[in-house]
């Protein structure tokens, strides 16, 4: 089965994981810029991180026949200090034209603060300035519902924003409807302990439909599984979904969204 992993933090994973992804049929993966599990002490840390995303990881992925793409930003966890965040954002123009950069992401909110919101909106403006797609992180656990509402309200103030070029990720049963109803794409993250299990993700597809929605592993340094997407596809098979129905979610849909970036050349 061919599939696209639209959200994976491979800088935190081993080369063995690339091999597993390739064996499972992964043709391309997309790596949003995010938190590294600790706060970086200077903007220089992000300079090196952006080099890793645009220079090193594509080569590591290519050894297994996987195309590697990335998104750039300062993540919301480190965006609560606006001065520091703007130092990092000033680096983005030096990297944004690189051949594997799809757009701005994963921006969003973490603890739903005014500073995070301010930096989120400045990132959206960068995406608009470069006419690139946006990938949005929604907060964890108890903060997700409030944060998702704040993000949708904030995006309403950008009158020239094409909502079909924005994906709001990590939706669950209490946020999927509001994201899709507002005209955005929705991403479901398959995690062992938080976010969605494979069965809940399939339930969301049954409840909200299969348009403008994808699923991802968001595998990173924490409790996560790089094989989550093919495992969910297996669960769909057990629930009698056809190969065409599975292919729409794990390949056709991500392809349709990601192709809106001029650099997604799969």
């Amino acid at each position, binding site marked *: 089965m061919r599939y696209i992993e639209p959200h994976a933090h491979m800088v935190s994973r081993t080369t063995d994981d690339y091999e597993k992804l390739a064996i499972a049929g992964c043709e391309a993966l997309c790596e949003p810029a995010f938190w590294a599990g600790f706060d970086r002490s200077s903007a220089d840390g992000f300079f090196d991180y952006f080099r890793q995303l645009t220079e090193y990881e594509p080569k590591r992925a290519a050894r297994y026949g996987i195309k590697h793409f990335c998104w750039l930003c300062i993540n919301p*966890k480190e965006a*609560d200090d606006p001065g520091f965040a703007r130092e990092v954002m000033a680096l983005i123009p030096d990297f944004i034209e690189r051949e594997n950069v799809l757009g701005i992401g994963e921006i969003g909110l*973490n*603890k*739903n*603060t*005014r*500073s*995070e*919101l301010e930096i989120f909106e400045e990132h959206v403006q960068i995406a608009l300035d470069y006419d690139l797609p946006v990938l949005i992180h929604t*907060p*964890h*656990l*108890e*903060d*997700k*519902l*409030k944060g998702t509402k*704040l993000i949708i309200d904030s995006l309403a103030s950008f009158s020239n924003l094409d909502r079909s070029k924005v994906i709001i990720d990590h939706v*669950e*049963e*209490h946020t999927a409807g509001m994201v899709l109803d507002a005209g955005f794409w929705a991403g479901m993250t398959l995690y062992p302990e938080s976010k969605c299990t494979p*069965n*809940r993700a399939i*339930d969301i597809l*049954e409840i909200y439909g299969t348009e403008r929605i994808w699923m991802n592993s968001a595998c990173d340094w924490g409790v996560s599984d790089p094989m989550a997407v093919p495992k969910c596809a297996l669960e769909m098979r*057990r*629930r*009698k979904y056809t190969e065409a129905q599975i292919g729409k979610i794990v390949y056709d849909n991500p392809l349709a969204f990601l192709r809106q970036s001029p650099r997604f050349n799969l």
Partner: protein
Amino acid sequence: MLTKKELLNLQFIDARARVIDIAAFLDRLDRHDGDADIRLGYFTKALSVLHENRPDRAKAVLEAFSDMTVEISETAPFQGATGAPVS
């Protein structure tokens, strides 16, 4: 889509195990010393949703664990999340 019977054949054992795990977790809490905190209250509230006859129990459980305030703070008191609004 699977029939109810087919779904039970596929997932009943797994769901049964999860219910027993929750029961054992509550028993374990009872056996241990000290006071629980507000998280247990949210947990109990979420469990009550399971008895409701409604088509969106998963959504309601997630809402039971959600911060429903509308105020926006200037900065974050801490970076992580605890699973229920504790502050």
